C-alpha cells in the first residue's frame, strides 16, 4: 500500500515538474508580445502579400517581331496581334535584325521573334521554314516557359497555314463529290433497267457505270474522303465486283433475277454512301480539317484553388515547422548557456519531463497559431477548407510533434544559440528545396528524394492540402510518417539530454 502511495505521489510530482517547464515557456512567450504578434501575424501578412503579388504561373514577355526585308508583309503590329498568345505581348514590328538584337541586349524587350526569309521557297524545297526566337533568361524555369510557348505559337502558325491551304485546295474535294453523285445516278438507273428486264439498256448502263467508278477513284479528293469516312480499304472495290457479276449474268441472257436485283441494290447503296460522305466532307470548314482534334480538360477537384490557395497549406506548414524547430532548439540551448541545466541536474527532474513540458507549451502555442492562421486565410484570403477541420487539426498536431522533435534533435547538435539558428535555417532551406514547396517531389532523383521524406514539411503539406483543397481525409501513411519522425527525433533528443544530465 505504501509503495502504491509512493508511486502515486511520484506520478503527481512528475506532472508538477513537467508543468513547471510548460508554464515557464508559456509565461516567457506571453511576456514577449512582439514574439506572439510576429508568430501569428507575420505568416499571415506574408501569405496576404504573396496572394496580392503573385501573378500566376505564366510569364508575360515583351516581344518584338522581325519581318524579312523583302517580304510584302504589313509593318502594322495590329496585323499580327492575334498570332501571339497572352504570353508574348507584341510590343512592335521591325525589319532591322540588329536593332532588335540590341533592344534585347539592353533589356528593352524580353523576346525577339524573327520570321524566316521566303518561307514558301524553303517549304517547296522540302525543308522547314524556321522561326528564330531569341531571349535572355537566366532562370531555367522561365527559359523553359519561353521554349514551350514558342512551340505552341509555331503550331498555331502551322495550323493557320494549313487551314489557308485547305481553303485554296477545296476543288478536288468538290470534284470527288460531283463524281460520287454521278456514280450514284448510274446505280439508280441500273436498278431500274434490271427491274424492267431491259437487258440491252442494262448492259450499256454497266459499261457507263464502270467508267464512272474509275473516274471517281481517279479524283484527287477521293482518298481524302475515304480516309475521313473512316474507310480502311477501297470503298468502291465491292461495287466493282458486284458490277462484274451483273455483267456476266447479262452476257448469259439472264435479266431481272433476284440475285441481279440484290447486287444492283448493294451497288446503289455503296454509291449512295459515297455521295453522302463526299458532300459531308466538303461541308467541313478548313479550320476544322487543319486541326481535327481539340481538347477539353476537366478538373474533377471540388473547387480548383487559386495560386495562393494552392500554396497556402504548404506555407502554413513550412512556417509552423520553422518556428517549432527554432523555438525548441533555442530553448534547450539557451537553458544550457544560462546555466539552468546545472539546476536541472541537481533538482529531481528527469530529461523526459523537461522535453515533455516544453513540447506541451510550444505545441499549445503553435497549435493556436496554426488554427488562427488557417482561420485567417480562410476568412480573409478566401482559401478553402473543404475537408473536416478535425483532420486539419490532426495533421497540424502531428506536424508540430515531429517539428518540435526535430528542434530538440537540432538542440543536441548545437552548442551555442548561433549554431542553433544556423541549423534551423539549414532545415528551412532543405524544406524549401526538398519539401515539395515549389519543386514537385517527382522531379527529384529517387535517392535524393529520401531527404524529402525525412522532413515534416513534406508530409504535412501533402496532408493539409488533401484536407483543405481536396476535401479528403489525409493519407494515413503520411500521418504515420510524421509520427515516426517525431518519435525518432524525441528518442535521440532524450538520449542526448540524459547524457548531458548524467554525472560526469
Amino acid at each position, binding site marked *: 500500500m505504501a509503495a502504491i502511495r509512493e508511486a502515486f505521489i511520484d506520478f503527481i510530482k512528475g506532472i508538477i515538474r513537467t508543468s513547471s517547464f510548460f508554464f515557464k515557456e508559456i509565461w516567457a512567450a506571453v511576456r514577449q508580445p512582439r514574439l506572439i504578434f510576429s508568430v501569428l501575424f507575420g505568416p499571415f501578412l506574408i501569405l496576404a502579400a504573396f496572394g496580392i503579388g503573385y501573378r500566376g504561373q505564366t510569364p508575360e514577355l515583351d516581344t518584338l517581331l522581325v519581318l524579312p526585308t523583302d517580304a510584302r508583309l504589313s509593318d502594322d503590329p495590329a496585323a499580327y496581334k492575334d498570332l501571339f498568345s497572352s504570353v508574348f505581348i507584341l510590343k512592335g514590328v521591325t525589319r532591322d535584325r540588329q536593332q532588335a538584337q540590341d533592344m534585347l541586349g539592353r533589356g528593352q524587350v524580353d523576346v525577339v521573334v524573327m520570321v524566316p526569309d521566303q518561307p514558301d521557297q524553303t517549304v517547296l524545297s522540302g525543308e522547314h521554314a524556321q522561326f528564330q526566337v531569341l531571349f535572355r533568361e537566366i532562370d531555367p524555369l522561365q527559359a523553359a516557359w519561353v521554349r514551350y510557348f514558342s512551340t505552341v505559337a509555331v503550331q498555331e502558325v502551322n495550323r493557320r497555314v494549313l487551314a489557308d491551304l485547305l481553303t485554296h485546295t477545296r476543288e478536288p474535294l468538290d470534284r470527288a463529290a460531283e463524281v460520287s453523285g454521278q456514280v450514284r445516278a448510274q446505280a439508280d438507273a441500273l436498278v431500274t433497267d434490271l427491274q424492267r428486264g431491259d437487258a440491252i439498256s442494262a448492259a450499256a448502263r454497266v459499261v457507263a457505270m464502270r467508267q464512272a467508278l474509275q473516274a471517281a477513284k481517279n479524283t484527287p479528293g477521293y482518298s481524302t474522303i475515304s480516309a475521313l469516312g473512316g474507310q480502311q480499304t477501297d470503298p468502291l472495290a465491292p461495287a466493282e465486283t458486284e458490277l462484274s457479276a451483273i455483267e456476266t449474268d447479262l452476257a448469259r441472257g439472264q435479266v431481272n433475277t433476284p440475285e441481279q436485283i440484290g447486287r444492283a441494290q448493294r451497288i446503289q447503296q455503296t454509291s449512295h454512301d459515297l455521295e453522302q460522305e463526299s458532300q459531308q466532307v466538303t461541308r467541313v470548314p478548313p479550320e476544322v480539317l487543319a486541326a481535327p482534334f481539340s481538347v477539353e480538360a476537366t478538373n474533377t477537384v471540388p473547387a480548383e484553388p487559386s495560386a495562393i490557395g494552392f500554396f497556402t497549406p504548404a506555407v502554413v506548414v513550412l512556417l509552423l515547422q520553422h518556428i517549432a524547430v527554432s523555438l525548441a532548439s533555442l530553448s534547450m540551448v539557451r537553458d544550457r548557456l544560462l546555466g539552468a541545466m*546545472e539546476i536541472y541536474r541537481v533538482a*529531481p527532474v528527469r530529461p523526459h519531463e523537461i522535453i515533455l513540458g516544453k513540447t506541451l507549451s510550444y505545441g499549445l502555442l503553435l497549435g493556436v497559431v496554426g488554427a488562427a492562421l488557417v482561420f485567417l486565410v480562410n476568412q480573409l484570403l478566401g482559401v478553402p477548407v473543404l475537408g473536416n477541420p478535425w483532420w486539419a487539426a490532426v495533421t497540424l498536431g502531428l506536424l508540430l510533434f515531429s517539428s518540435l522533435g526535430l528542434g530538440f534533435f537540432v538542440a543536441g547538435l548545437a552548442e551555442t544559440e548561433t549554431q542553433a539558428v544556423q541549423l534551423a535555417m539549414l532545415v528551412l532551406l532543405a524544406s524549401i528545396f526538398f519539401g515539395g514547396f515549389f519543386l514537385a517531389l517527382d522531379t527529384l532523383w529517387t535517392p535524393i528524394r529520401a531527404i524529402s521524406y525525412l522532413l515534416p514539411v513534406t508530409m504535412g503539406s501533402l496532408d493539409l492540402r488533401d484536407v483543405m483543397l481536396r476535401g479528403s481525409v489525409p493519407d494515413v501513411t503520411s500521418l504515420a510518417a510524421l509520427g515516426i519522425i517525431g518519435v525518432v527525433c524525441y528518442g535521440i533528443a532524450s538520449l542526448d539530454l540524459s547524457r548531458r544530465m548524467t554525472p560526469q
Partner: protein
Amino acid sequence: MSSPASGVRAEGRDERPPDPSPDSTLRPIGTTRRRTLGMDEPAVVAVDIGKRFGDRDVVHGLSFEVQAGSIFGIIGPSGGGKTTTMRMLLGVLRPTSGDLRVLGRPPHRFGRRERESLGYMPQQFVLFPELSVLENMGFAASIYGMGFMGRGRRIRRTLELVDLWDARQRPAGLLSGGMQRRLELAATLVHDPQVIFLDEPTAGIDPVLRAKFWDHFRALRDEGRTLIVTTQYVTEAEYCDEILVLSDGQRVATGTPDQVRRMAMGGEVVTVSGPDLTSRAVTAIRTVDGVKDVAWAGRDRLRVIVEDAGTAVPTVIDALHAADVAVDEVSEEHASFDDVFVQLMDSQSEGEHRDGRDP
C-alpha cells in the same frame, strides 16, 4: 604617557562584521522541517576524494566531514577547486577517487527523494530574465515537485524573507544585481531543503546585504539545516562553524575558524606595545609559562605567541611589571582571516618548496 598598570587594557579585537540590525527583514522561515539526520550525524563524509579532468588533477586527497545542522565553509582562492568540490557534493560530478557520501549516499547515485532534500544556489544568475519574480519562484517550486495548492504561502514567505515580495511582479531581468542574488537565494530555499549548497552566494554584493545573508544562513543553521558555502571572501570564514581551506585542489587546513587560526599562527597572539620596549621586556615575557614565541612587530610593539591568550595576558602584564617595563597595552590579537589566509598560503608555499615542488 601611561603607567604600566593603569594603561593596560586586556581586550580581544573582534574582526567579525557587525551583527545585523534588530529590525532586519531576513527572518527565519517558520516551517515544518523534514529531519532525516540527527544533529550529531555527519551530512557529508568525504574520504580522500579526488577529481581528474583528462590528465589534470583538479581536486585530490580531500577528506572532511560536515556535521548536520552546521555551516561548512569551503574557502580558497579562485581556481582552487571549491566549485569542483561542491559539484561533487551535489552529484553533478562523480569523484574519480575516494569515497563520498552525502546524506548517507554517494551523491551521483541520488534518487529523486534525496534530490528533493537539496537546495543549490549556483554562482551565476540562472533564473529566467523575462519571467517575473513570482513566476521564477513558481518554476523553482515546481521543479522540486511542490504542488500548486499551498505553495503560494511558502513563496510569499520566502520572498518576504529576502525583501522581494513588493517586487514580485517585476521581471527578473530588470532587478538589480543584489536583488537577483536575493531572488536566487529565495528560489534555493522555496522547497525547504535539508542541505543547502551555496556557491559564492555573497560574490558581488554590498557588505550590508552580505551581512544580512550570513545572518540568515545562521538562522537556517539554527533551524537544523546544513549549509555548505563556498566563498572567496576569507573573512567570511568567521561565520562558519567549520571551514575547509583549499588551494590548488588540495586541503590546506580544516577545522573550526579558531582552530584554523591557531594552526596558521602557531597559537594565539598577544601584542605588547609601549615606548620603552627593550630586550629586557623580551626576556621578561619569555619567562612566562605558555609563551611559545616573542618577536618584534615594530619599534615599539612585540607579538607574543601563546598557548592560551586568556591566561597569558595577565601573566605577561605581571612579568613586565616585575621587570619594571612600562607598557601602553597588552591585548589579545584576534588575527584577521586575511592574515590567517596569507599565513596558510605562505606555509603551503614553503612546504611545497621544501618538498621540491613548484608552488
